């Protein structure tokens, strides 16, 4: 263990635990998922960074959106995101979740993911290399350290606005609101 971090460990053990054991949801959208198997297996070995895939969203705290998001996928993403326990971190992978990417004029692909769920970080590129995932993870560590990876708090705070946006494109969502009202 890094001795310089000893103080942090003693002061905020839970945060350090979250930071160094990011469990990523097994959830694939679009083409970016092709970069994930080499990242989590022997070639790049994400476990060096404490990132390991989790079988269920209820056991995960990192959500990689790995490509374009169609309307049907968005529904599944929202359901998955809402099932994850807090604190949870979302990273948009590739250019499609950022602004639509090459699907910018597609009739069935959402353009800005951060209008529907909060996103803590973006990895730009089409495709980003697996190394970019690790750069993102180390950035995420810094953000968690500084309390800036606050997507789940923003989701609570602006839940009414997020829910309104989700219903604007998906129609009736079919499940009750996660939080009671704004400003919870």
């Amino acid at each position, binding site marked *: 263990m890094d001795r310089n971090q000893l103080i942090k460990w003693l002061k905020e053990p839970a945060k350090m635990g979250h930071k160094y054991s990011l469990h990523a949801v097994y959830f694939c959208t679009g083409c970016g998922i092709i970069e994930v198997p080499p990242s989590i297996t022997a070639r790049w070995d994400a476990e060096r960074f404490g990132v390991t895939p989790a079988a269920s969203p209820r056991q995960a705290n990192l959500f990689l959106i790995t490509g374009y998001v169609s309307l049907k996928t968005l529904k599944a993403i929202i359901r998955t995101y809402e099932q994850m326990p807090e604190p949870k971190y979302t990273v948009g992978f590739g250019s499609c979740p950022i602004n639509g990417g090459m699907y910018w004029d597609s*009739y069935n692909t959402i353009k*800005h993911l*951060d209008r529907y769920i*909060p996103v803590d970080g973006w990895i730009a590129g089409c495709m980003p290399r697996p190394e970019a995932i690790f750069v993102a993870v180390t950035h995420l560590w810094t953000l968690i350290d500084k309390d800036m990876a606050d997507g789940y708090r923003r989701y609570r705070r602006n839940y009414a*606005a*997020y829910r309104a*946006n989700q219903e604007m494109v998906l129609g009736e969502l079919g499940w009750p609101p996660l939080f009671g009202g704004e400003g919870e």
Partner: protein
Amino acid sequence: MDRRLQGLEEAFDGLDIEPSRDGGKRLLVDRGSVLSLLSALVDRGFDHLHMVSCVDWPEQKELELVYILSAYNLGGSFEEEHRDVVMVGCRVPRNRPVAVSAIRLFECAEPYEREIHELFGVRFEGHPRLTPLFLDRHYETPPFRKDFDTRQYVEDFFGRVPPVGDGDGERT
């Protein structure tokens, strides 16, 4: 190939056979006789339906259904010159796009016809379930038609979703 298609032109009135670019044959036929042509082709050995597709011709106000068939039994040869592929084209008017389903001849036509119904708005008579296949919502114009303005649609539909506050707005 020519041996297999012999006598077809005489048997079908409006049938037009022309060579296609990839060395195969292109059979253009009226909407009414497409099913009988397909069954005649099955009898002549074209027993495999590769796919059903659709082409939009907005100038002629027509949609063209394209059936690609091949002969599965090549007589023991896999050489290029023995590969028999025919393309059956049939045009339906754009304002009343109705065609007869080919499921009775080729069961594998079912998902293709569902897809064409969803994306081009062609109704297939005799299809057991023309329910949505890919899309989750209803579109005024079927989205694969040429007059569906995707950019305008994106602007209207996705453009109205506002950014959510808390600094997310600067990334629009």
